[in-house]
């Protein structure tokens, strides 16, 4: 299948690949999977507890090119954003930016899931006053 130039760019030069210390108090980790295809993605954020600003982000994705590009882009986008701003990132924006075709939409969903999961993990660690419905099923 034909990937867009932006996907190819992120695929060849993925930004922010790597990992951070999962047990560190200011690091949030999201590990998510796409049941449709069996691909997995891990995204980690490092958050300044005073300002709630995401200072660093890393990812590692085992999946298709679109998933790698989506997560690479996601790390770029979340950096410098506050937690609340990062939560507004929608998979449809990723689809648009990377010109993903309909069959690759689930790959962008994976990236949105990863951001949300990482933030949720971080919030849990902070014992946030307003827990993100961690018990909700």
């Amino acid at each position, binding site marked *: 299948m034909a990937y867009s130039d932006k996907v190819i760019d992120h695929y060849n030069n993925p930004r922010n690949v790597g990992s951070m210390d999962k047990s560190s108090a200011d690091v949030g980790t999201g*590990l*998510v*999977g*796409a*049941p*449709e*295809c*069996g*691909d*997995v993605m*891990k995204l980690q954020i490092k958050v300044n507890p005073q300002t709630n600003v995401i200072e660093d982000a890393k990812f*590692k994705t*085992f999946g298709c090119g679109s998933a790698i590009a989506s997560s690479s882009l996601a790390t770029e986008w979340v950096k410098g954003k506050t937690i609340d701003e990062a*939560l507004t990132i*929608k*998979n449809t924006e990723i689809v648009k930016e990377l010109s993903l075709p309909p069959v690759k*939409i*689930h790959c962008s*969903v*994976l990236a*949105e*899931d990863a951001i*949300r*999961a990482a933030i*949720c993990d971080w919030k849990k660690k902070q014992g946030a006053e307003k827990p*993100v*419905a*961690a018990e*909700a*099923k």
Partner: protein
Amino acid sequence: MTTKSAFTGISTKPPAEENHSCWSCGAMRAAHFCESCGKVQPPAPVDYFAFFGLPRRQLNLDVAKLEKDFYELSRKLHPDVSARASAQEQEWSLEQSSMLNDAYRTLRDPIKRTQYLLRLEGIELEEQSKSATERARATGETKKQIVPPDLLEEVFELNMQLEELRAQKKMGEDDPALVEEVGRQKLELEERYDGLLEELENYWKEWDVLIDRGPEANAEERAAVAKKMVDVLNRRNYIRNLVRDVTAVLES
């Protein structure tokens, strides 16, 4: 209540016994050919199960019988057979035969058959993750991952090992301990992969028992069994990838 499946565009309820008559001789029509005059019939808008005369949609199929029916119908619908029939009949034969091929290919494969049935039940396997994400976004709640977190953890870890082994192999210095470890994992994964099919077959049994109890009585129970089947298929996707990737790395 009759629901329409977006995927197939056909009714998801088993059709009531078709009572139409043959377009040619007026006798009661059969599914594909008139029992009385033998002429091909226009394709009926039925699902694949009904196409093969299995309107109750049991999942445990007699595959040998399915194959036999397939070959028999293929033969009868073959263009050579209808070469002298009217253009309309030839067209119907062609349509029937293309549906026959799709139906057979879907039903003979255990996984495709299950996926197809789930779609008929209104479950869009490709959409499940996306809709869960949309729900999470709308409510601000945490999306529950569709497979157990342990499994994701395991998939991730094994992929890390594979990446390492791949890199080692590229340099021509594979660590024998890692090769052995990954080889062991391969066997275990293959076993699990087979085990998941067995698990799925158990749910088929549950499903067929429910079906035998009648169509209306047990919508909730049906949904519960359907959900179990969805779960197995999801987990199976991850294991399938691992088996594929582990094999590729070991053989590289």
